[in-house]
Protein backbone atom coordinates (compact mmCIF):
# COMPACT_ATOMS: atom_id res chain seq x y z
CA UNK A 1 0.00 0.00 0.00
CA UNK A 2 1.56 3.29 -1.09
CA UNK A 3 1.67 6.68 0.62
CA UNK A 4 -1.22 8.14 -1.41
CA UNK A 5 -3.52 5.28 -0.51
CA UNK A 6 -2.66 5.62 3.15
CA UNK A 7 -3.26 9.40 3.01
CA UNK A 8 -6.59 8.72 1.36
CA UNK A 9 -7.60 6.34 4.13
CA UNK A 10 -6.49 8.76 6.82
CA UNK A 11 -8.56 11.58 5.38
CA UNK A 12 -11.52 9.30 4.82
CA UNK A 13 -11.36 8.04 8.42
CA UNK A 14 -11.24 11.54 9.90
CA UNK A 15 -13.63 13.30 7.52
CA UNK A 16 -16.83 12.49 9.46
CA UNK A 17 -15.36 14.18 12.53
CA UNK A 18 -14.04 17.14 10.54
CA UNK A 19 -17.50 17.58 9.04
CA UNK A 20 -18.97 17.55 12.58
CA UNK A 21 -20.97 14.36 12.03
CA UNK A 22 -19.26 12.47 14.86
CA UNK A 23 -16.76 13.01 17.63
CA UNK A 24 -14.56 10.63 19.64
CA UNK A 25 -16.67 9.14 22.43
CA UNK A 26 -15.73 9.29 26.11
CA UNK A 27 -15.31 5.63 27.10
CA UNK A 28 -13.73 6.23 30.52
CA UNK A 29 -16.92 5.45 32.51
CA UNK A 30 -17.57 2.28 30.52
CA UNK A 31 -13.98 1.10 30.88
CA UNK A 32 -13.98 1.66 34.63
CA UNK A 33 -17.32 -0.13 34.98
CA UNK A 34 -16.00 -3.11 33.02
CA UNK A 35 -12.82 -3.20 35.10
CA UNK A 36 -14.79 -3.25 38.33
CA UNK A 37 -17.07 -5.95 36.91
CA UNK A 38 -14.05 -8.08 36.01
CA UNK A 39 -12.58 -7.50 39.45
CA UNK A 40 -15.80 -8.72 41.08
CA UNK A 41 -15.94 -11.70 38.74
CA UNK A 42 -12.32 -12.60 39.59
CA UNK A 43 -13.14 -12.34 43.28
CA UNK A 44 -16.07 -14.77 42.99
CA UNK A 45 -14.07 -17.03 40.74
CA UNK A 46 -11.33 -17.17 43.37
CA UNK A 47 -13.98 -17.95 46.01
CA UNK A 48 -15.41 -20.70 43.80
CA UNK A 49 -11.92 -22.08 43.16
CA UNK A 50 -11.23 -22.08 46.88
CA UNK A 51 -14.51 -23.90 47.49
CA UNK A 52 -13.67 -26.47 44.80
CA UNK A 53 -10.20 -26.98 46.29
CA UNK A 54 -11.69 -27.39 49.74
CA UNK A 55 -14.20 -29.92 48.40
CA UNK A 56 -11.43 -31.77 46.54
CA UNK A 57 -9.32 -31.83 49.69
CA UNK A 58 -12.27 -33.22 51.63
CA UNK A 59 -12.84 -35.92 48.99
CA UNK A 60 -9.14 -36.84 49.01
CA UNK A 61 -9.15 -36.92 52.78
CA UNK A 62 -12.17 -39.20 52.81
CA UNK A 63 -10.60 -41.38 50.11
CA UNK A 64 -7.43 -41.64 52.18
CA UNK A 65 -9.51 -42.49 55.21
CA UNK A 66 -11.34 -45.13 53.22
CA UNK A 67 -8.04 -46.61 52.05
CA UNK A 68 -6.87 -46.71 55.63
CA UNK A 69 -9.96 -48.63 56.45
CA UNK A 70 -9.08 -51.22 53.82
CA UNK A 71 -6.44 -53.77 54.72
CA UNK A 72 -3.09 -53.74 52.98
CA UNK A 73 -1.79 -56.67 50.94
CA UNK A 74 0.16 -57.82 54.00
CA UNK A 75 -2.91 -58.41 56.11
CA UNK A 76 -5.29 -59.19 53.25
CA UNK A 77 -7.88 -61.68 54.31
CA UNK A 78 -9.81 -64.03 52.10
CA UNK A 79 -13.44 -63.48 52.97
CA UNK A 80 -15.46 -65.52 50.55
CA UNK A 81 -16.15 -66.69 47.04
CA UNK A 82 -17.34 -64.54 44.16
CA UNK A 83 -19.68 -66.22 41.69
CA UNK A 84 -20.12 -64.28 38.48
CA UNK A 85 -22.47 -65.70 35.88
CA UNK A 86 -20.50 -66.33 32.75
CA UNK A 87 -17.28 -67.01 34.71
CA UNK A 88 -15.81 -69.51 37.14
CA UNK A 89 -16.10 -68.78 40.87
CA UNK A 90 -13.01 -67.35 42.56
CA UNK A 91 -11.91 -66.45 46.11
CA UNK A 92 -11.99 -62.75 47.02
CA UNK A 93 -10.01 -60.85 49.62
CA UNK A 94 -10.78 -57.94 51.90
CA UNK A 95 -9.89 -54.69 50.20
CA UNK A 96 -10.69 -56.08 46.77
CA UNK A 97 -12.78 -54.07 44.31
CA UNK A 98 -15.32 -56.33 42.68
CA UNK A 99 -17.47 -55.56 39.68
CA UNK A 100 -19.35 -57.82 37.33
CA UNK A 101 -20.62 -57.10 33.83
CA UNK A 102 -23.72 -59.20 34.50
CA UNK A 103 -25.30 -60.67 37.58
CA UNK A 104 -23.01 -62.06 40.27
CA UNK A 105 -23.05 -63.00 43.90
CA UNK A 106 -20.64 -62.85 46.78
CA UNK A 107 -20.86 -65.58 49.41
CA UNK A 108 -19.13 -64.64 52.64
CA UNK A 109 -17.36 -67.69 54.02
CA UNK A 110 -18.67 -68.83 57.38
CA UNK A 111 -20.98 -65.83 57.84
CA UNK A 112 -24.19 -66.87 56.08
CA UNK A 113 -24.11 -63.59 54.17
CA UNK A 114 -24.99 -63.73 50.50
CA UNK A 115 -24.83 -60.59 48.35
CA UNK A 116 -26.30 -60.55 44.88
CA UNK A 117 -24.80 -58.01 42.48
CA UNK A 118 -27.07 -56.70 39.77
CA UNK A 119 -25.43 -55.90 36.41
CA UNK A 120 -23.25 -52.82 36.69
CA UNK A 121 -22.85 -52.97 40.46
CA UNK A 122 -19.39 -52.55 41.94
CA UNK A 123 -18.16 -52.59 45.53
CA UNK A 124 -15.12 -52.60 47.80
CA UNK A 125 -14.91 -55.41 50.29
CA UNK A 126 -14.04 -53.62 53.54
CA UNK A 127 -14.59 -54.58 57.14
CA UNK A 128 -12.44 -56.67 59.46
CA UNK A 129 -12.56 -59.84 61.48
CA UNK A 130 -15.05 -58.18 63.87
CA UNK A 131 -17.63 -57.46 61.18
CA UNK A 132 -18.21 -57.31 57.45
CA UNK A 133 -18.53 -54.05 55.54
CA UNK A 134 -19.27 -53.68 51.87
CA UNK A 135 -18.77 -50.28 50.27
CA UNK A 136 -21.14 -50.03 47.32
CA UNK A 137 -19.64 -47.74 44.70
CA UNK A 138 -22.37 -48.03 42.10
CA UNK A 139 -25.41 -50.05 41.09
CA UNK A 140 -27.68 -52.27 43.14
CA UNK A 141 -27.13 -55.24 45.42
CA UNK A 142 -29.48 -57.60 47.22
CA UNK A 143 -28.27 -58.97 50.55
CA UNK A 144 -29.43 -62.05 52.47
CA UNK A 145 -28.10 -62.28 55.99
CA UNK A 146 -29.00 -65.37 58.01
CA UNK A 147 -30.83 -64.40 61.25
CA UNK A 148 -28.44 -66.69 63.12
CA UNK A 149 -25.49 -64.67 61.93
CA UNK A 150 -24.23 -62.62 64.86
CA UNK A 151 -21.53 -60.76 62.98
CA UNK A 152 -22.39 -57.17 62.06
CA UNK A 153 -22.86 -56.57 58.35
CA UNK A 154 -22.85 -53.02 57.01
CA UNK A 155 -23.39 -51.78 53.48
CA UNK A 156 -21.87 -48.32 53.00
CA UNK A 157 -22.38 -45.81 50.24
CA UNK A 158 -21.22 -42.21 50.02
CA UNK A 159 -24.67 -41.18 51.23
CA UNK A 160 -25.02 -43.41 54.26
CA UNK A 161 -25.01 -46.93 55.64
CA UNK A 162 -27.38 -49.85 56.11
CA UNK A 163 -26.52 -52.01 59.13
CA UNK A 164 -28.03 -55.42 59.84
CA UNK A 165 -27.62 -58.63 61.77
CA UNK A 166 -30.12 -60.94 60.17
CA UNK A 167 -32.31 -59.77 57.36
CA UNK A 168 -32.88 -59.50 53.64
CA UNK A 169 -32.62 -56.15 51.94
CA UNK A 170 -31.40 -54.35 48.85
CA UNK A 171 -29.28 -51.22 48.47
CA UNK A 172 -28.95 -49.15 45.34
CA UNK A 173 -26.89 -46.12 44.41
CA UNK A 174 -28.77 -44.39 41.65
CA UNK A 175 -27.06 -42.88 38.63
CA UNK A 176 -28.35 -41.29 35.49
CA UNK A 177 -27.77 -42.77 32.06
CA UNK A 178 -24.44 -40.95 31.76
CA UNK A 179 -23.11 -42.57 34.91
CA UNK A 180 -23.48 -39.43 37.01
CA UNK A 181 -25.02 -39.58 40.44
CA UNK A 182 -28.46 -38.11 40.21
CA UNK A 183 -29.83 -35.65 42.71
CA UNK A 184 -33.20 -35.07 44.24
CA UNK A 185 -35.88 -37.19 45.82
CA UNK A 186 -35.69 -40.96 45.22
CA UNK A 187 -32.42 -40.46 43.43
CA UNK A 188 -29.63 -41.30 45.80
CA UNK A 189 -29.26 -44.34 48.00
CA UNK A 190 -32.34 -46.51 48.16
CA UNK A 191 -32.78 -49.30 50.73
CA UNK A 192 -35.63 -51.80 50.52
CA UNK A 193 -36.13 -54.25 53.37
CA UNK A 194 -37.77 -57.62 52.73
CA UNK A 195 -37.21 -59.34 56.09
CA UNK A 196 -35.95 -58.32 59.53
CA UNK A 197 -34.89 -54.79 60.45
CA UNK A 198 -32.23 -52.58 58.85
CA UNK A 199 -30.77 -49.46 60.47
CA UNK A 200 -30.26 -46.85 57.73
CA UNK A 201 -27.94 -44.00 58.68
CA UNK A 202 -27.28 -40.90 56.61
CA UNK A 203 -23.63 -40.03 56.07
CA UNK A 204 -21.90 -37.44 58.25
CA UNK A 205 -22.45 -34.77 59.31
CA UNK A 206 -26.16 -35.56 59.67
CA UNK A 207 -25.83 -39.12 60.97
CA UNK A 208 -29.62 -39.46 61.25
CA UNK A 209 -30.72 -43.04 61.66
CA UNK A 210 -34.03 -44.72 60.96
CA UNK A 211 -34.94 -48.31 61.63
CA UNK A 212 -36.60 -49.76 58.56
CA UNK A 213 -38.86 -52.78 59.00
CA UNK A 214 -39.70 -55.52 56.54
CA UNK A 215 -41.88 -54.32 53.68
CA UNK A 216 -40.63 -50.76 54.03
CA UNK A 217 -37.75 -48.82 52.58
CA UNK A 218 -35.64 -45.71 53.04
CA UNK A 219 -34.18 -43.11 50.76
CA UNK A 220 -31.03 -41.16 51.59
CA UNK A 221 -30.75 -37.93 49.67
CA UNK A 222 -28.26 -35.09 49.62
CA UNK A 223 -29.56 -31.56 49.29
CA UNK A 224 -27.18 -28.59 49.53
CA UNK A 225 -24.54 -30.84 51.08
CA UNK A 226 -26.85 -32.06 53.84
CA UNK A 227 -27.63 -35.77 53.89
CA UNK A 228 -31.09 -36.76 55.01
CA UNK A 229 -32.70 -40.14 55.43
CA UNK A 230 -36.39 -40.70 55.01
CA UNK A 231 -38.34 -43.85 55.65
CA UNK A 232 -40.82 -44.95 53.01
CA UNK A 233 -43.59 -47.08 54.46
CA UNK A 234 -44.11 -49.27 51.44
CA UNK A 235 -41.47 -50.72 49.12
CA UNK A 236 -44.10 -50.60 46.41
CA UNK A 237 -43.59 -46.84 46.40
CA UNK A 238 -39.92 -47.34 45.74
CA UNK A 239 -40.53 -49.93 43.10
CA UNK A 240 -42.30 -47.29 41.05
CA UNK A 241 -39.01 -45.42 40.78
CA UNK A 242 -35.81 -46.66 39.21
CA UNK A 243 -35.29 -48.54 42.46
CA UNK A 244 -37.53 -51.15 40.89
CA UNK A 245 -34.35 -52.65 39.47
CA UNK A 246 -33.34 -53.62 42.97
CA UNK A 247 -36.79 -54.70 44.09
CA UNK A 248 -37.86 -56.76 41.15
CA UNK A 249 -34.45 -58.00 40.15
CA UNK A 250 -35.10 -56.91 36.59
CA UNK A 251 -32.98 -54.48 34.72
CA UNK A 252 -35.17 -52.22 32.68
CA UNK A 253 -33.31 -51.21 29.58
CA UNK A 254 -35.56 -49.09 27.44
CA UNK A 255 -35.39 -48.45 23.71
CA UNK A 256 -37.95 -45.67 23.21
CA UNK A 257 -39.41 -45.62 19.73
CA UNK A 258 -37.84 -48.90 18.68
CA UNK A 259 -40.13 -51.81 19.46
CA UNK A 260 -38.11 -54.33 17.44
CA UNK A 261 -34.96 -53.69 19.44
CA UNK A 262 -36.93 -53.70 22.68
CA UNK A 263 -38.45 -57.09 21.80
CA UNK A 264 -35.07 -58.54 20.83
CA UNK A 265 -33.45 -57.21 23.99
CA UNK A 266 -36.21 -58.56 26.23
CA UNK A 267 -35.83 -61.96 24.56
CA UNK A 268 -32.09 -61.93 25.19
CA UNK A 269 -32.64 -60.91 28.79
CA UNK A 270 -35.02 -63.84 29.36
CA UNK A 271 -32.53 -66.13 27.66
CA UNK A 272 -29.77 -64.85 29.94
CA UNK A 273 -31.89 -65.44 33.05
CA UNK A 274 -32.65 -69.02 31.95
CA UNK A 275 -28.96 -69.74 31.36
CA UNK A 276 -28.09 -68.21 34.71
CA UNK A 277 -30.63 -70.42 36.47
CA UNK A 278 -29.03 -73.48 34.86
CA UNK A 279 -25.56 -72.28 35.85
CA UNK A 280 -26.70 -71.74 39.42
CA UNK A 281 -28.28 -75.21 39.61
CA UNK A 282 -25.02 -76.81 38.44
CA UNK A 283 -23.05 -74.79 40.99
CA UNK A 284 -25.34 -75.92 43.80
CA UNK A 285 -25.12 -79.54 42.69
CA UNK A 286 -21.35 -79.38 42.30
CA UNK A 287 -20.92 -77.91 45.78
CA UNK A 288 -22.40 -81.14 47.13
CA UNK A 289 -19.77 -83.28 45.40
CA UNK A 290 -17.57 -85.13 47.95
CA UNK A 291 -14.33 -83.25 47.23
CA UNK A 292 -16.02 -79.84 47.31
CA UNK A 293 -18.14 -80.67 50.35
CA UNK A 294 -15.01 -81.77 52.22
CA UNK A 295 -13.27 -78.50 51.29
CA UNK A 296 -16.34 -76.56 52.51
CA UNK A 297 -16.32 -78.47 55.81
CA UNK A 298 -12.62 -77.74 56.33
CA UNK A 299 -13.26 -74.10 55.51
CA UNK A 300 -16.08 -73.79 58.04
CA UNK A 301 -13.99 -75.44 60.74
CA UNK A 302 -10.95 -73.25 60.24
CA UNK A 303 -13.08 -70.07 60.12
CA UNK A 304 -14.81 -71.06 63.36
CA UNK A 305 -11.48 -71.84 65.02
CA UNK A 306 -10.00 -68.50 64.00
CA UNK A 307 -13.01 -66.50 65.20
CA UNK A 308 -13.18 -68.35 68.46
CA UNK A 309 -9.51 -67.67 69.15
CA UNK A 310 -9.93 -64.04 68.15
CA UNK A 311 -12.94 -63.40 70.36
CA UNK A 312 -11.22 -65.12 73.26
CA UNK A 313 -8.41 -62.59 73.10
CA UNK A 314 -9.09 -59.88 75.70
CA UNK A 315 -7.01 -57.23 73.95
CA UNK A 316 -8.98 -57.75 70.76
CA UNK A 317 -12.30 -57.62 72.59
CA UNK A 318 -11.21 -54.37 74.26
CA UNK A 319 -10.32 -52.85 70.91
CA UNK A 320 -13.69 -53.82 69.43
CA UNK A 321 -15.48 -52.43 72.47
CA UNK A 322 -13.55 -49.16 72.17
CA UNK A 323 -14.47 -48.93 68.51
CA UNK A 324 -18.13 -49.54 69.29
CA UNK A 325 -18.02 -46.70 71.81
CA UNK A 326 -16.30 -44.37 69.37
CA UNK A 327 -18.78 -45.21 66.63
CA UNK A 328 -21.61 -44.40 69.01
CA UNK A 329 -19.93 -41.12 69.90
CA UNK A 330 -19.48 -40.35 66.21
CA UNK A 331 -23.14 -41.10 65.49
CA UNK A 332 -24.29 -38.71 68.22
CA UNK A 333 -21.54 -36.16 67.70
CA UNK A 334 -23.42 -33.49 65.76
CA UNK A 335 -26.69 -33.73 67.62
CA UNK A 336 -25.00 -33.79 71.04
CA UNK A 337 -22.72 -30.81 70.45
CA UNK A 338 -25.07 -28.52 68.57
CA UNK A 339 -26.01 -26.24 71.43
CA UNK A 340 -22.81 -26.07 73.44
CA UNK A 341 -21.58 -22.84 71.89
CA UNK A 342 -18.43 -24.32 70.35
CA UNK A 343 -17.33 -22.57 67.15
CA UNK A 344 -18.11 -24.58 63.99
CA UNK A 345 -14.42 -24.74 62.99
CA UNK A 346 -13.47 -26.13 66.38
CA UNK A 347 -16.30 -28.64 66.27
CA UNK A 348 -15.19 -29.76 62.84
CA UNK A 349 -11.64 -30.27 64.13
CA UNK A 350 -13.00 -32.41 66.94
CA UNK A 351 -15.01 -34.45 64.47
CA UNK A 352 -11.93 -34.99 62.28
CA UNK A 353 -9.91 -36.06 65.33
CA UNK A 354 -12.64 -38.50 66.26
CA UNK A 355 -12.77 -39.84 62.73
CA UNK A 356 -8.99 -40.31 62.69
CA UNK A 357 -9.04 -42.12 66.03
CA UNK A 358 -11.70 -44.42 64.63
CA UNK A 359 -9.64 -45.10 61.52
CA UNK A 360 -6.55 -45.88 63.60
CA UNK A 361 -8.60 -48.23 65.72
CA UNK A 362 -9.97 -49.94 62.62
CA UNK A 363 -6.44 -50.44 61.38
CA UNK A 364 -5.43 -51.96 64.70
CA UNK A 365 -8.42 -54.31 64.64
CA UNK A 366 -7.77 -55.26 61.03
CA UNK A 367 -4.13 -56.09 61.65
CA UNK A 368 -4.54 -57.42 65.18
CA UNK A 369 -4.33 -61.07 64.19
CA UNK A 370 -1.16 -60.42 62.14
CA UNK A 371 0.70 -59.30 65.25
CA UNK A 372 -0.23 -62.30 67.42
CA UNK A 373 1.61 -65.43 66.14
CA UNK A 374 -1.10 -67.95 67.12
CA UNK A 375 -3.84 -65.85 65.54
CA UNK A 376 -1.74 -65.15 62.45
CA UNK A 377 -1.30 -68.88 61.93
CA UNK A 378 -5.05 -69.47 62.26
CA UNK A 379 -5.80 -66.60 59.92
CA UNK A 380 -3.43 -68.07 57.34
CA UNK A 381 -5.13 -71.44 57.68
CA UNK A 382 -8.51 -69.74 57.21
CA UNK A 383 -7.38 -68.02 54.02
CA UNK A 384 -5.95 -71.27 52.69
CA UNK A 385 -9.15 -73.14 53.54
CA UNK A 386 -11.37 -70.58 51.75
CA UNK A 387 -9.05 -70.56 48.75
CA UNK A 388 -9.03 -74.37 48.88
CA UNK A 389 -12.82 -74.48 48.75
CA UNK A 390 -12.94 -71.99 45.88
CA UNK A 391 -10.30 -73.96 43.97
CA UNK A 392 -12.05 -77.27 44.57
CA UNK A 393 -15.33 -75.78 43.31
CA UNK A 394 -13.58 -74.14 40.38
CA UNK A 395 -11.88 -77.37 39.31
CA UNK A 396 -15.06 -79.35 39.61
CA UNK A 397 -16.98 -76.80 37.54
CA UNK A 398 -14.21 -76.46 34.95
CA UNK A 399 -14.39 -80.20 34.41
CA UNK A 400 -18.13 -79.95 33.76
CA UNK A 401 -18.60 -79.50 29.99
CA UNK A 402 -22.23 -78.44 30.36
CA UNK A 403 -21.26 -75.72 32.82
CA UNK A 404 -18.48 -74.37 30.60
CA UNK A 405 -20.85 -74.33 27.61
CA UNK A 406 -23.31 -72.31 29.69
CA UNK A 407 -20.58 -69.83 30.63
CA UNK A 408 -19.78 -69.31 26.93
CA UNK A 409 -23.44 -68.97 25.98
CA UNK A 410 -24.03 -66.32 28.65
CA UNK A 411 -21.07 -64.40 27.26
CA UNK A 412 -22.54 -64.55 23.76
CA UNK A 413 -25.95 -63.39 24.97
CA UNK A 414 -24.32 -60.44 26.73
CA UNK A 415 -22.37 -59.54 23.60
CA UNK A 416 -25.60 -59.58 21.60
CA UNK A 417 -27.28 -57.33 24.21
CA UNK A 418 -24.38 -54.92 24.09
CA UNK A 419 -24.51 -54.85 20.28
CA UNK A 420 -28.22 -53.99 20.39
CA UNK A 421 -27.58 -51.14 22.83
CA UNK A 422 -24.64 -49.85 20.79
CA UNK A 423 -26.61 -49.91 17.54
CA UNK A 424 -29.56 -48.18 19.15
CA UNK A 425 -27.28 -45.48 20.61
CA UNK A 426 -25.59 -44.97 17.23
CA UNK A 427 -28.96 -44.69 15.50
CA UNK A 428 -30.20 -42.16 18.07
CA UNK A 429 -27.03 -40.10 17.73
CA UNK A 430 -27.36 -40.14 13.95
CA UNK A 431 -30.96 -39.01 14.14
CA UNK A 432 -30.15 -36.29 16.64
CA UNK A 433 -27.31 -35.19 14.37
CA UNK A 434 -29.74 -35.00 11.47
CA UNK A 435 -32.17 -33.02 13.62
CA UNK A 436 -34.84 -35.70 13.84
CA UNK A 437 -36.76 -36.53 16.99
CA UNK A 438 -35.84 -39.96 18.35
CA UNK A 439 -38.60 -42.40 17.56
CA UNK A 440 -40.71 -39.86 15.67
CA UNK A 441 -42.20 -40.89 12.31
CA UNK A 442 -39.48 -43.40 11.76
CA UNK A 443 -39.70 -46.27 9.34
CA UNK A 444 -37.91 -49.22 10.99
CA UNK A 445 -37.11 -50.80 7.64
CA UNK A 446 -35.12 -47.75 6.52
CA UNK A 447 -32.09 -47.87 8.71
CA UNK A 448 -34.03 -48.87 11.83
CA UNK A 449 -32.05 -50.21 14.70
CA UNK A 450 -33.76 -53.55 14.55
CA UNK A 451 -32.84 -53.89 10.88
CA UNK A 452 -29.15 -53.17 11.29
CA UNK A 453 -27.06 -56.02 9.85
CA UNK A 454 -24.81 -58.04 12.12
CA UNK A 455 -21.20 -56.91 12.22
CA UNK A 456 -19.18 -58.93 9.76
CA UNK A 457 -16.70 -61.32 11.30
CA UNK A 458 -18.20 -61.03 14.77
CA UNK A 459 -19.40 -64.20 16.44
CA UNK A 460 -23.13 -64.11 17.03
CA UNK A 461 -25.27 -66.16 19.35
CA UNK A 462 -27.64 -68.77 17.96
CA UNK A 463 -30.71 -69.29 20.12
Amino acid at each position, binding site marked *: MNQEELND*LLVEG*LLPEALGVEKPPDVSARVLFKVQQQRRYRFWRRCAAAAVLAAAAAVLWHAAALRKHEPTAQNAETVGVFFAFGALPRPVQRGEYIAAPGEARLEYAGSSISVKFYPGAAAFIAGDSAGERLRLMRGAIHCRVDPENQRPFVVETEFGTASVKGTEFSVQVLEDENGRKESGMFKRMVVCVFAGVVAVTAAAPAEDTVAVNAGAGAVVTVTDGVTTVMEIGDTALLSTSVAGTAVGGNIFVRFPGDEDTQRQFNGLRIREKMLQEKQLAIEMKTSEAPAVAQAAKTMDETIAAFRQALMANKDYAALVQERDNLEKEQRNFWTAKREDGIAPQERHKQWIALFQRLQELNMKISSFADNVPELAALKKKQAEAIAGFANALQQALAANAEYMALVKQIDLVRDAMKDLQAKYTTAIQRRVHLGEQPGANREPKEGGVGEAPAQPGKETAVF
Partner: protein
Amino acid sequence: MDDNTLTAMVKAHQAGLYRFARYLGADAESAEDIVQETFLAAYKQKVFPPAGTPQCGAWLRAILRNLFHTHLRREKRQALFINAEVMRQAEVHWQSEALVEDQDATAYVTALRQCLRQTNGRDREMLRLRYEQNLGLEEIGAKVGLAGEGVKTALRRLRAKLADCVRRRLRGFAS
Protein backbone atom coordinates in the same frame (compact mmCIF):
# COMPACT_ATOMS: atom_id res chain seq x y z
CA MET B 1 -2.63 -0.73 37.20
CA ASP B 2 -4.82 1.21 39.62
CA ASP B 3 -8.03 3.01 38.75
CA ASN B 4 -6.43 6.48 38.74
CA THR B 5 -3.70 5.44 36.29
CA LEU B 6 -6.28 3.78 34.09
CA THR B 7 -8.50 6.86 34.10
CA ALA B 8 -5.54 9.10 33.21
CA MET B 9 -4.59 6.77 30.37
CA VAL B 10 -8.13 6.67 29.00
CA LYS B 11 -8.50 10.47 29.12
CA ALA B 12 -5.15 11.03 27.40
CA HIS B 13 -5.46 8.47 24.60
CA GLN B 14 -9.10 7.63 23.89
CA ALA B 15 -9.63 10.25 21.18
CA GLY B 16 -6.39 9.35 19.37
CA LEU B 17 -7.18 5.64 19.54
CA TYR B 18 -10.69 6.21 18.24
CA ARG B 19 -9.36 8.18 15.27
CA PHE B 20 -6.73 5.53 14.64
CA ALA B 21 -9.42 2.85 14.62
CA ARG B 22 -11.47 4.91 12.15
CA TYR B 23 -8.33 5.33 10.01
CA LEU B 24 -7.93 1.52 9.96
CA GLY B 25 -11.45 1.29 8.57
CA ALA B 26 -13.56 0.48 11.61
CA ASP B 27 -17.05 1.96 11.56
CA ALA B 28 -18.00 4.34 14.39
CA GLU B 29 -19.63 1.67 16.55
CA SER B 30 -16.85 -0.90 16.13
CA ALA B 31 -14.21 1.76 16.74
CA GLU B 32 -15.80 2.66 20.07
CA ASP B 33 -15.92 -1.02 21.14
CA ILE B 34 -12.34 -1.68 20.07
CA VAL B 35 -11.08 1.37 21.96
CA GLN B 36 -12.82 0.13 25.08
CA GLU B 37 -11.38 -3.37 24.62
CA THR B 38 -7.92 -1.86 24.10
CA PHE B 39 -8.00 -0.17 27.50
CA LEU B 40 -9.32 -3.33 29.16
CA ALA B 41 -6.48 -5.32 27.59
CA ALA B 42 -3.99 -2.65 28.68
CA TYR B 43 -5.37 -2.79 32.23
CA LYS B 44 -4.40 -6.46 32.49
CA GLN B 45 -0.74 -5.71 31.67
CA LYS B 46 1.66 -5.49 34.56
CA VAL B 47 4.18 -3.26 32.79
CA PHE B 48 3.07 -0.19 30.83
CA PRO B 49 4.48 3.18 29.67
CA PRO B 50 3.49 6.39 31.50
CA ALA B 51 0.08 7.70 30.41
CA GLY B 52 0.11 10.64 28.00
CA THR B 53 3.52 9.87 26.48
CA PRO B 54 4.14 9.01 22.78
CA GLN B 55 5.41 5.61 23.94
CA CYS B 56 2.11 4.94 25.66
CA GLY B 57 0.23 5.99 22.51
CA ALA B 58 2.30 3.64 20.34
CA TRP B 59 1.85 0.83 22.87
CA LEU B 60 -1.92 1.27 22.95
CA ARG B 61 -2.11 1.44 19.15
CA ALA B 62 -0.19 -1.86 18.96
CA ILE B 63 -2.80 -3.44 21.24
CA LEU B 64 -5.59 -1.90 19.18
CA ARG B 65 -4.08 -3.19 15.92
CA ASN B 66 -3.98 -6.72 17.30
CA LEU B 67 -7.54 -6.51 18.55
CA PHE B 68 -8.75 -5.04 15.28
CA HIS B 69 -6.95 -7.75 13.33
CA THR B 70 -8.64 -10.42 15.48
CA HIS B 71 -11.96 -8.63 15.06
CA LEU B 72 -11.64 -8.65 11.27
CA ARG B 73 -10.67 -12.30 11.20
CA ARG B 74 -13.57 -13.18 13.45
CA GLU B 75 -15.96 -11.23 11.27
CA LYS B 76 -14.33 -12.79 8.17
CA ARG B 77 -14.37 -9.38 6.58
CA GLN B 78 -12.31 -8.48 3.57
CA ALA B 79 -10.73 -5.28 4.74
CA LEU B 80 -7.68 -3.41 3.51
CA PHE B 81 -5.93 -3.81 6.83
CA ILE B 82 -6.54 -7.51 7.26
CA ASN B 83 -2.84 -8.01 6.61
CA ALA B 84 -0.70 -7.46 9.72
CA GLU B 85 2.13 -6.06 7.60
CA VAL B 86 -0.16 -3.39 6.12
CA MET B 87 -1.24 -2.54 9.66
CA ARG B 88 2.38 -1.88 10.56
CA GLN B 89 2.67 0.36 7.48
CA ALA B 90 -0.39 2.23 8.74
CA GLU B 91 1.33 2.82 12.08
CA VAL B 92 4.45 4.17 10.36
CA HIS B 93 2.28 6.41 8.20
CA TRP B 94 0.32 7.63 11.23
CA GLN B 95 3.59 8.65 12.86
CA SER B 96 5.09 10.15 9.67
CA GLU B 97 2.14 12.49 9.29
CA ALA B 98 3.48 14.45 12.25
CA LEU B 99 1.01 12.82 14.56
CA VAL B 100 3.66 11.58 17.01
CA GLU B 101 3.76 14.85 18.85
CA ASP B 102 0.02 15.23 18.52
CA GLN B 103 -1.09 12.01 20.16
CA ASP B 104 -4.82 12.40 19.67
CA ALA B 105 -4.52 13.83 16.10
CA THR B 106 -6.51 16.92 17.09
CA ALA B 107 -4.27 19.15 15.02
CA TYR B 108 -4.82 16.94 11.98
CA VAL B 109 -8.60 17.11 12.40
CA THR B 110 -8.45 20.90 12.93
CA ALA B 111 -6.35 21.31 9.80
CA LEU B 112 -8.73 19.06 7.88
CA ARG B 113 -11.67 21.14 9.08
CA GLN B 114 -9.98 24.30 7.85
CA CYS B 115 -9.20 22.73 4.50
CA LEU B 116 -12.82 21.66 4.16
CA ARG B 117 -13.87 25.30 4.46
CA GLN B 118 -11.99 25.92 1.22
CA THR B 119 -14.13 23.44 -0.68
CA ASN B 120 -17.36 24.63 -2.24
CA GLY B 121 -20.06 23.89 -4.78
CA ARG B 122 -20.30 20.33 -6.04
CA ASP B 123 -17.25 19.11 -4.05
CA ARG B 124 -18.73 20.25 -0.76
CA GLU B 125 -22.09 18.71 -1.69
CA MET B 126 -20.53 15.35 -2.57
CA LEU B 127 -18.62 15.26 0.75
CA ARG B 128 -21.77 16.12 2.65
CA LEU B 129 -23.82 13.43 0.88
CA ARG B 130 -21.11 10.82 1.33
CA TYR B 131 -19.95 11.45 4.92
CA GLU B 132 -22.94 13.15 6.50
CA GLN B 133 -25.81 11.26 4.88
CA ASN B 134 -23.88 8.02 4.13
CA LEU B 135 -25.32 7.79 0.60
CA GLY B 136 -23.99 5.31 -1.97
CA LEU B 137 -21.99 6.37 -5.02
CA GLU B 138 -24.92 5.91 -7.42
CA GLU B 139 -27.26 7.95 -5.24
CA ILE B 140 -24.74 10.76 -4.98
CA GLY B 141 -24.19 10.60 -8.74
CA ALA B 142 -27.92 10.98 -9.35
CA LYS B 143 -27.97 14.13 -7.24
CA VAL B 144 -24.87 15.80 -8.67
CA GLY B 145 -25.22 14.61 -12.27
CA LEU B 146 -22.35 12.12 -12.42
CA ALA B 147 -22.02 8.36 -12.89
CA GLY B 148 -21.15 6.23 -9.83
CA GLU B 149 -17.58 5.71 -11.03
CA GLY B 150 -17.30 9.43 -11.65
CA VAL B 151 -18.32 10.18 -8.08
CA LYS B 152 -15.76 7.67 -6.83
CA THR B 153 -12.94 9.30 -8.81
CA ALA B 154 -14.04 12.79 -7.84
CA LEU B 155 -14.12 11.90 -4.15
CA ARG B 156 -10.69 10.29 -4.31
CA ARG B 157 -9.22 13.39 -5.95
CA LEU B 158 -10.95 15.55 -3.39
CA ARG B 159 -9.46 13.53 -0.50
CA ALA B 160 -6.01 13.74 -2.08
CA LYS B 161 -6.40 17.55 -2.26
CA LEU B 162 -7.49 17.66 1.35
CA ALA B 163 -4.51 15.47 2.39
CA ASP B 164 -2.12 17.85 0.61
CA CYS B 165 -3.81 20.84 2.20
CA VAL B 166 -3.56 19.29 5.69
CA ARG B 167 0.09 18.38 5.18
CA ARG B 168 0.90 21.95 4.10
CA ARG B 169 -0.92 23.38 7.07
CA LEU B 170 0.72 21.01 9.56
CA ARG B 171 4.17 21.64 8.12
CA GLY B 172 3.46 25.35 8.32
CA PHE B 173 2.60 24.94 11.99
CA ALA B 174 5.72 22.87 12.54
CA SER B 175 7.96 25.49 10.91
